[in-house]
């Protein structure tokens, strides 16, 4: 019978990458401590990947993992010291595996030389240290296959000091055993792998043929097993049938196994093995199959130990899953969640439409529709709650993004010869999946920057009176409706003079400008800006920071930097929790409705004629208290024909972006509401100044204004008009 396994592939790949993550973080943990639980966790992960890949037919992955597993096994048993080289190699193997898994998923071939190289290294590491105590195994190398070899090397020494126990097992299944699809002969076959097995069937309970129910099991078995396996391993094999049978496992005798003595083939107790392949049909076989052939002994032995390992691993797994916390999560395809979110979004729209109609109706009929109104209020509340909880589904802890940094920091710091200690706080802070995915790259840039430019070499640090090991901190927490992520280092900080010199060279600022610290630090976000004296492959090409800012802005957030010369710098990223909804202010311009994020609005006011002044005849400023605010006429900027022309007739919405205020001139304000953000890009394209679109209660599309983008667009237009915005402070 063949089952199409391909539909399970996705799950397998996901499990693989989870397993690899576990391995990676575990390996990094080994740098600091040698907790046996960590090693076990790594081992388990490797083992499940091996098992999974073998059953799904990814033999390359399976055999590669096998070698890793062998190495890990030795570490776990304390037969091998944990060295930095070893960890490096294992980390490299994790990378290769990840590549292989990715290649398998995309149905492509992974770079074979890379696999071979790491495979070779693993093998040679295995050989170098275990050679001494595997004299016996080596003699058999010629005949045994490669896989067997490795097993033997890994396990022969262990076997040598293991005890052989004779177990007597009394197995009396319930009559219903076979109906549940259990097959005693399979259990016996597994037991044979553990050691030498003799089986005796007790057929006394079989009724006369006329009374036999062919689906019942009437046979009991008494088995005796000589094995080095533990009681748990034997019980494990019976775990499926334990509830449906009387099972007694007793220890008959124990003796020390001599390393050189092969297990003697059982000759005396050639008891018949009863196989119940077909229910009701009783087959009696000679026990020739039961007794292992003498010539097969080495392979058999290797097999045994392999099974032992499997059983142990399974045991470990069950123990840990029992003691570990149940996270209580399910795996759901993101499409399904998005679909759900979309539907709820639609529901919100429908609800607001109904609500509006209901209010109109209730007002016009003077109270006749109180119940309708109550119902609609109820509906509104329920819809909101539903929407909130559905949106929660997309929220993931930021640790998904943070988890790669220990590795990154470790690799990078050793590469550039710096000592860095990474601390991460607030990893459980939850954030929308999309935000999470898009924040990864900017964070990598920031961390690399801190390592490369921020934290100094140990010598420099020592000279400056700082501890040789630099500190790098990643911090995440919620504040209001936003998530704040900070990258803090205690390195050299930003050099104000350097930045100013570089900025002047690049013509970003004029010679005589008096700049605030904030302004200076913001300069490093300009495209192509780098103060690194030499370009390294780590950073210094000046493409990092502007990418960071752009990505963060695309997510509707902002990034700022703070620095103390000599004492380090802090980069703060502020992001909205979710990209799916937004608290918006609806504003009308001409016939169109636009939405402005409430977060960016400072205030809205009616303009006084005497406070409006024009500037070089082209742009207008509004004097608000002690500040001159540029007025952006949205209808002109967007090229819409309609809309009010006279500033005093409309309203000015004062918005803030990057610490600067601008005023948006609109016809009137319509109301505030939570809007579901729809992408313009999926079917259209990104438009500067527009963050997306939403659908209003009447089914019409309204555009959501992206304030920073809009201001950029405005400045660009001003520059084209030879308008000097720089003079406005």
């Amino acid at each position, binding site marked *: 019978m063949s089952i199409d396994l391909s539909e399970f592939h996705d799950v397998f790949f996901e499990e693989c990458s989870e397993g690899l993550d576990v391995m990676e973080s575990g390996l990094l943990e080994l740098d600091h401590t040698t907790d046996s639980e960590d090693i076990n966790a790594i081992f388990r992960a490797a083992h499940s990947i091996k098992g999974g890949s073998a059953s799904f037919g990814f033999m390359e992955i399976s055999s590669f993992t096998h070698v890793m597993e062998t190495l890990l096994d030795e570490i776990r048993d304390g037969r091998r010291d944990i060295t930095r080289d070893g960890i490096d190699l294992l980390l490299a193997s994790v990378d290769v595996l990840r590549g292989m898994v990715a290649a398998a998923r995309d149905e492509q071939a992974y770079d074979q030389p890379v696999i071979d190289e790491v495979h070779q290294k693993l093998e040679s590491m295995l050989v170098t240290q275990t050679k001494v105590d595997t004299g016996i195994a080596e003699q058999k190398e010629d005949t045994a296959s490669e896989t067997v070899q490795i097993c033997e090397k890994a396990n022969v020494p262990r076997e040598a000091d293991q005890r052989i126990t004779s177990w007597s097992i009394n197995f009396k299944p319930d009559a219903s055993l076979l109906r549940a699809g259990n097959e005693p002969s399979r259990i016996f076959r597994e037991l044979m792998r553990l050691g030498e097995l003799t089986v005796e069937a007790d057929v006394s309970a079989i009724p006369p043929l006329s009374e036999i129910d062919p689906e019942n099991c009437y046979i009991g078995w008494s088995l005796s097993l000589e094995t080095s396996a533990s009681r748990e391993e034997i019980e494990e094999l019976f775990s499926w049938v334990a509830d449906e049978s009387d099972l007694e496992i007793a220890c008959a005798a124990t003796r020390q196994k001599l390393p050189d003595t092969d297990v003697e083939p059982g000759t005396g107790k050639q008891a018949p093995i009863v196989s119940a392949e077909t229910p009701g049909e009783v087959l009696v076989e000679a026990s020739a199959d039961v007794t292992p052939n003498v010539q097969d002994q080495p392979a058999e032995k290797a097999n045994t130990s392999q099974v032992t390992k499997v059983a142990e691993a399974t045991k470990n797994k069950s123990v840990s899953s029992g003691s570990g916390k149940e996270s209580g999560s399910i795996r759901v395809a993101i499409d399904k969640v998005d679909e759900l979110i979309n539907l709820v979004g639609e529901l919100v729209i429908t609800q607001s439409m109904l609500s509006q109609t209901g209010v109109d109706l209730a007002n016009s009929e003077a109270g006749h529709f109180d119940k309708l109104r109550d119902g609609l209020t109820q509906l509104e509340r329920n819809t909101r709650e539903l929407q909130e909880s559905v949106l929660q589904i997309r929220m993931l802890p930021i640790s998904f993004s943070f988890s790669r940094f220990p590795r990154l920091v470790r690799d990078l710091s050793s590469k550039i010869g710096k000592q860095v200690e990474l601390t991460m706080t607030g990893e459980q802070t939850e954030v929308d999946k999309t935000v999470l995915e898009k924040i990864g790259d900017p964070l990598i840039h920031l961390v690399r920057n801190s390592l490369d430019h921020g934290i100094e070499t140990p010598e420099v640090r020592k000279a400056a009176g700082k501890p040789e090991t630099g500190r790098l901190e990643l911090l995440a927490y919620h504040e209001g409706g936003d998530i704040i992520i900070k990258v803090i280092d205690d390195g050299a900080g930003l050099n104000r003079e350097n930045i100013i010199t570089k900025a002047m060279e690049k013509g970003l600022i004029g010679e005589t400008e008096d700049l605030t610290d904030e302004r200076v630090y913001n300069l490093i976000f300009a495209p192509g800006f780098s103060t690194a004296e030499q370009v390294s492959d780590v950073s210094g090409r000046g493409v990092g920071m502007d990418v960071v800012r752009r990505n963060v802005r695309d997510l509707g957030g902002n990034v700022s930097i703070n620095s103390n010369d000599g004492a380090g710098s802090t980069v703060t990223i502020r992001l909205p929790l979710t990209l799916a909804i937004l608290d918006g202010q609806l504003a009308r311009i001409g016939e169109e409705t636009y939405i402005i994020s409430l977060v960016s609005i400072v205030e809205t006011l009616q303009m006084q004629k005497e406070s409006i002044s024009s500037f070089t005849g082209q742009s207008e400023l509004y004097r608000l208290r002690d500040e001159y605010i540029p007025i952006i006429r949205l209808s002109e900027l967007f090229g819409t024909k309609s809309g009010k022309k006279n500033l005093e007739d409309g309203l000015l919405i004062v918005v803030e972006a990057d610490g600067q205020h601008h005023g948006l001139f609109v016809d009137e304000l319509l109301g505030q509401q939570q809007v579901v953000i729809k992408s313009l890009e999926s*079917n*259209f*394209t990104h*438009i*500067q100044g527009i963050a997306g679109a939403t659908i209003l209660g009447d089914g*019409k*599309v309204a*555009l959501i204004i992206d304030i920073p983008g809009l201001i950029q667009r405005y400045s660009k237009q001003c520059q084209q008009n030879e308008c000097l915005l720089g003079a406005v402070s």
Partner: protein
Amino acid sequence: MNTTQTQAAEKTTGSAIETDNRLDQYLTFLLAGEEYGIDILRVQEIRGWSGATPIPNMPDFILGVMNLRGTVVPVIDLRKYLKLESIPFGKTTVVIVARITDADEQSERTMGIVVDAVSEVHNIASTDMKPAPEFGGALNTDAIKGLATRDEKMLIILEIDALMNNGVEQILNASEQE
């Protein structure tokens, strides 16, 4: 505007011509008195014109975006796109919602195309299609799959991806220039 769709479907039956070749179905529409056809498998639905929200600083053939059951879809005025004379939208004006594959064949986008009216669904075998001669005008020859004749009238069968990709490029350029 389901009625339009049903009408179009009803007319189908009459025009089926049996040939040995595989018949492809084409939805035809009218534009300035000419009849054009597009692969019906690309057509998602046909809707009556119900307005669109204008998008700032876009080429004039972009009428804006509309709400297609929760997705925001751009709408193109095919007359303006093909540099034909504009006429006021009337009762028969419809939006053909079609799926367009990008030039890089990586992504697919849904677009609304405004035409004067939908006409029929024709079954046309590829052998019945004549290659288009080289001619000037707004229509690139790449965008024409071929010419077919039905009821003594010429049908211009369009390759919708090639037709729209030029427009998509213009849109992308417009958004980059800003």
